[in-house]
């Protein structure tokens, strides 16, 4: 699943004090800025040859496009702290390629379909999401792990086929196509795991 998005439409203004990290601050899990892009340190190791200088081996993941890279820094390295901000917002409605969220004061924020990727299918009115901003631009959205959706179309299960692992195609509200067990019928509400897009269980029967 594409965790992070490429483009941007949402902007927030946030007061921010800029800090620099030095080599000895580097550690796994730290988020830094390199050439203007935010990165997460996914692996870190300190190396120091006898009598030599400290070397800081880092593996990074780009928080915008998910690409990875490896770099080794010396003692004198300085890396910027990315202007990252997380906000809790609620989903309101879609208007073409615009997906509109609102905060507690009902200020509206747009997130593009591109940033959302497949996750646009899992939006349900009023669910709470975490949106990650870099320099005021939405770069990632985190949905609740599970959302509930009604099945709008599926063929009836074939009578007599009771094997537990047999699945059939279904379409849920918003147009997402998913595979569900045979006993699920049109109008049922099912729970979907947003992390892998798969059916979890049936919440209610029609």
């Amino acid at each position: 699943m594409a965790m992070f998005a490429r483009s941007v439409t949402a902007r927030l203004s946030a007061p921010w004090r800029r800090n620099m990290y030095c080599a000895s601050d580097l550690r796994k899990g730290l988020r830094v800025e390199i050439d203007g892009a935010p990165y997460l340190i996914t692996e870190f190791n300190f190396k120091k040859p006898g009598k030599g200088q400290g070397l800081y081996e880092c593996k990074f993941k780009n928080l915008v496009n998910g690409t990875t890279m490896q770099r080794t820094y010396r003692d004198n390295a300085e890396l910027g702290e990315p202007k990252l901000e997380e906000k809790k917002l609620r989903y309101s409605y879609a208007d073409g390629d615009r997906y509109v969220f609102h905060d507690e004061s009902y200020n509206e924020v747009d997130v593009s379909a591109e940033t959302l990727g497949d996750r646009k299918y899992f939006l349900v009115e009023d669910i709470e999401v975490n949106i990650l901003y870099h320099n005021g631009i939405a770069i990632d959205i985190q949905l609740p792990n599970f959302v509930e959706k009604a099945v709008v179309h599926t063929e009836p299960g074939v009578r007599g086929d009771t094997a537990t692992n047999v699945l059939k195609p279904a379409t849920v509200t918003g147009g997402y196509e998913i595979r569900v067990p045979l006993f699920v019928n049109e109008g049922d509400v099912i729970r979907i795991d947003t992390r892998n897009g798969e059916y979890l269980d049936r919440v209610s029967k029609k």
Partner: protein
Amino acid sequence: MMLRHLSEKKRVLAVRSKAFQSVRDFFVARGFLEVETPIRIPTPALELHIDAEPSAGMYLRTSPELHMKRLVAAGYEKVFQIGACFRHGERGDLHNPEYTMLEWYRAGANYIDVLADTKALMAHVMKDISGGLTLTYKGISIEMLPLWDRMTVDDAFILHAGWDPVKNFNADRFDLDLVEKVEPNFPKNRPIVLMDYPTRAAALSRCKKDHPEIAERWELYIGGIEIANAFSELTDPVEQRNRFMECAGERREMGREVYALDEPFLSALEAGMPECAGVALGLDRLVMLLTDSPRIDDVRAFCARESGNDT
């Protein structure tokens, strides 16, 4: 899970204790005197890339080296010490800011003589711990045969990094290429001794006769881990003072704290220091090898918790 973890730690700490006893037995049987030198000291040895932890107007030692050499100068011909050393900001799979060092010094010896000590020590400890001369580290079987591979620094760099640091020393490239190009190419199934360093990379080491650009220093690698460092010790007080001053100047330029010269040590050299050689061996790393442990945290009862890698 927790129980398994605890029992693994107990196994490792038992090997650690046995290995320390074995090291002591080895040196005492060969006529070495076990000594203790101050841990909290007025000024640490000047090294370009080693920072000391301050301790209420003084410092915690980064190595016992200068005090040990003062004992040699005072007539103690064979001394060894096992003790804690402290290095600010060093934290990784092979580093803990507090760690345990073994150092020994032998008067009338050079760096090749103490390499023989090191081989005999490794064989002695391995026999005490495992009964044999083979150990397995990270899935690789290491043979501790009596003949160890030796490679000079210039050969190793010309072969693996494509340049000669003895002819044209470049401090910045040296450390990076050592870690990224040279060390990864070392054999992992047997010990290797990297020797004859550029003098610029060996502040306390004597130079080769007729080759002032080469210092008599070696580093021992076992299973890819740098485990010991040795010098034919520099005994010339004038040259030692000059090298300290040069190092102090470089530290000043780098914006690092500049420690005062250790005058009692320099006085000891002036009063007359016999030719001698010494080895510093990381005991935590030795226990890592003996117990097949990937991280220094695995072999210490307690460890610093300042790295994001701590779990």
